[in-house]
């Protein structure tokens, strides 16, 4: 393999490419050795194995974070909780991951997504094992808070997908991995009550003991997935960070520089706001929707649980669909297409949320909720079709900021609209929709010089290399530290260039 810096950015990629050890890749790859296709049925190392490890570990974390809500009728009697207690615990369950998502971005940039994911999932396993030991509301809030740190595996998941899959399909890869991970929120609503029932009736445990035992299921899942990620996972297509650093193929970077370039890019903050009103809305709904149907429409708790789980299950196809739509729009319209697709999908999600709040009838409410869930989750997928392009150098920390923004949006929404008796739940849902539409409109401010924005066309003569190269200063350029960014710039190039002759396709 050519030493770093001497490899031409236009070298012939693909089928004959090999990793550091000389093994041929199972999938067709580009010049950065990122896969150009996504084969969901395959477990081939490194790309597809990483894909499956990544989404399953993220799903495990979603599973354990939202494991208490379906068992809440038992827990609230055991711990003698009031409505305010439950709401406080729900806010705690999305707060911890703000901190961890910010940290995870940096850890991925510096130590690699494999370590980031494995360390987080195995360090939060003790928090899950503490749930069976909880005796009071204080303990319950603290445990939910610490378990929620695990949701930062989202950042490592997205970072890992962006490192393994080519920009043509990064939207699809990110959307599918994240969507299938988010399904954990739906799976847990079905599985935890089943496990509880099994333990109570088949094993004869006491009512107030059975729910505690049920929490060993997510705990053990954490440990198993952590070990699998450590043993089978790989940071980059060419190998792990440590091996690549040794051979000089991975440029070590400093936290300060990575943070600076991430924080000073205004697009980071715009997407933090918009993601707060797509993932934020999804997390809020995960926490409140079962109770909403139970209270407003008088369905029993099992039925409310089934309805609640369908919201989460839409993620199986809704979030990947958002990624696919983003990729399809990019093929035809480049980055501008991605931005418009995101704005349209998320605004429609907000409108449907408003409609959900003003729907008075049970069946219509369920139908509206299902359509609403598709749009909200597709918006999350479409957001991560854009994020890999905001920065190459600071991808991890930007993913962390934006992911944390999702949680901040959820906390803000829950505190503003769902924690007091000022608004009924249906009014709260309607107001959440209004806020979604308002906050999504900041997307009009996003502008990439080389690709344009929603309203403005690209600047003439501005290139991808300029944009990504600008993250490195003159000394770093001279030392050749920006080479990986240049490779990325080439691979990110839009597929259409507009010249005086009109649109023509460029491969």
């Amino acid at each position: 393999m050519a030493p770093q810096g001497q490899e031409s950015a236009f070298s012939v990629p693909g089928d004959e490419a090999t990793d550091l050890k000389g093994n041929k890749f199972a999938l067709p790859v580009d010049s950065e050795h990122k896969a150009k296709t996504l084969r969901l049925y395959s477990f081939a190392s490194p790309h597809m194995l990483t894909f499956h490890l990544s989404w399953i570990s993220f799903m495990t974390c979603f599973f354990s974070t939202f494991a208490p809500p379906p068992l809440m009728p038992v827990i609230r009697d055991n711990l003698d909780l009031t409505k305010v207690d439950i709401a406080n615990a729900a806010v705690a369950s999305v707060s911890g991951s703000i901190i961890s998502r910010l940290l995870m971005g940096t850890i991925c940039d510096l130590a690699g997504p494999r370590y980031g994911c494995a360390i987080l999932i195995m360090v939060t396993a003790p928090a899950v094992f503490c749930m069976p030991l909880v005796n009071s509301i204080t303990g319950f809030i603290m445990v939910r808070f610490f378990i929620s740190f695990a949701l930062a595996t989202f950042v490592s998941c997205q970072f890992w997908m962006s490192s393994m899959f080519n920009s043509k399909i990064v939207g699809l890869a990110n959307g599918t991995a994240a969507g299938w991970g988010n399904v954990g929120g739906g799976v847990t609503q079905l599985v935890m009550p089943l496990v509880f029932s099994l333990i109570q009736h088949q094993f004869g445990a006491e009512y107030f003991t059975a729910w505690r035992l049920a929490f060993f299921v997510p705990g053990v899942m954490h440990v198993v997935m952590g070990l699998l990620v450590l043993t089978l996972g790989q940071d980059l297509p060419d190998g792990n960070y440590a091996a690549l650093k040794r051979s000089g193929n991975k440029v070590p970077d400093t936290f300060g520089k990575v943070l600076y370039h991430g924080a000073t890019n205004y697009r980071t903050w715009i997407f933090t706001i918009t993601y707060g009103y797509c993932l934020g809305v999804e997390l809020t709904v995960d926490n409140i929707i079962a109770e909403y149907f139970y209270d407003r429409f008088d369905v029993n708790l099992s039925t409310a649980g089934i309805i609640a789980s369908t919201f989460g299950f839409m993620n199986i196809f809704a979030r990947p669909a958002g990624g696919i739509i983003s990729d399809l729009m990019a093929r035809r319209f480049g980055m501008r297409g991605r931005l418009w697709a995101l704005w349209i999908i998320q605004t429609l999600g907000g409108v449907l949320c408003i409609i959900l709040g003003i729907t008075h009838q049970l069946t219509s409410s369920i139908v509206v909720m299902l359509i609403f869930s598709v749009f909200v989750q597709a918006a999350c997928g479409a957001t991560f079709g854009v994020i890999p392009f905001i920065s190459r150098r600071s991808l991890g920390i930007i993913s962390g900021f934006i992911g944390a923004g999702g949680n901040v949006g959820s906390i803000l929404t829950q505190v503003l609209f769902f924690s007091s008796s000022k608004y009924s739940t249906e009014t709260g849902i309607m107001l959440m929709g209004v806020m979604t539409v308002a906050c999504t409109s900041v997307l009009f401010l996003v502008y990439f010089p080389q690709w344009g924005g929603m309203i403005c066309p690209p600047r003439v003569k501005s290139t991808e290399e300029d944009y990504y190269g600008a993250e490195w200063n003159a000394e770093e350029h001279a030392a050749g530290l920006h080479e990986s960014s240049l490779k990325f710039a080439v691979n990110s190039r839009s597929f259409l260039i507009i010249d005086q002759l009109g649109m023509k396709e460029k491969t």
Partner: protein
Amino acid sequence: MACCHKLLAVTVLFAALFQATEVEGGVRFSTLERNLVVNAQIQSQNVSSGVAKVGVDSLAVQWNLNSSLEIEVDSEYASVKVKLCFAPKSQIDRGWRKTDDDLQRDNTCPKEIATKLYRSEGNFVVWRIPKNVPGGEYFVRAYVLDTQAVELAYGQNTDDAKTTNLITIIPITGRLPSIDIAGIVLSLFSVVSLCSFLLAETLLDEKIRFQNDLLNHIGVIGPRALAFAFTN
């Protein structure tokens, strides 16, 4: 195949929903007359405590028809259902225990103590409090039902405001020492195996770096050593 599964799931979901949307109005509590006299006492080994522990203590409940009423009032009375009900103090801020006048939607009385055939007097039951009763303040209410299981009258051991003669029940925690130990052991396993793994990989990395450095070093002096060896 996936299509069939999805279709089945959707069908089951809609079937469940349509069942749930059938709402029948029940009897209104405000229409019932308080014709029974109910008494309840805690039977406990620790007599003076005034509270009942689940799984250990029992409630002794007696009920009879109010003797000052006209005789014909109980002509349709078929059975009596005795229930344990939340006092207002245990309902505050807990909407799932809300009192509703429509008895179909009322959540005041979660636990059934006994169901017996109706007799105007001489009714007595001792009920060991099961371990799944949550802690709180309770009272005992008995509903009189007709042959169609429709409520006709009631009685309770407290006043109408539900403030007197309340029973305090102490719950179990649900925790067991074995659960505590298992949780601690598995947590330690998780942290220790993670640290071992990281340590092993760091040591391996250092070993490989050391070997690489050594080989590079030998690579420099190797040819000169050979040249030296050949000339000597």
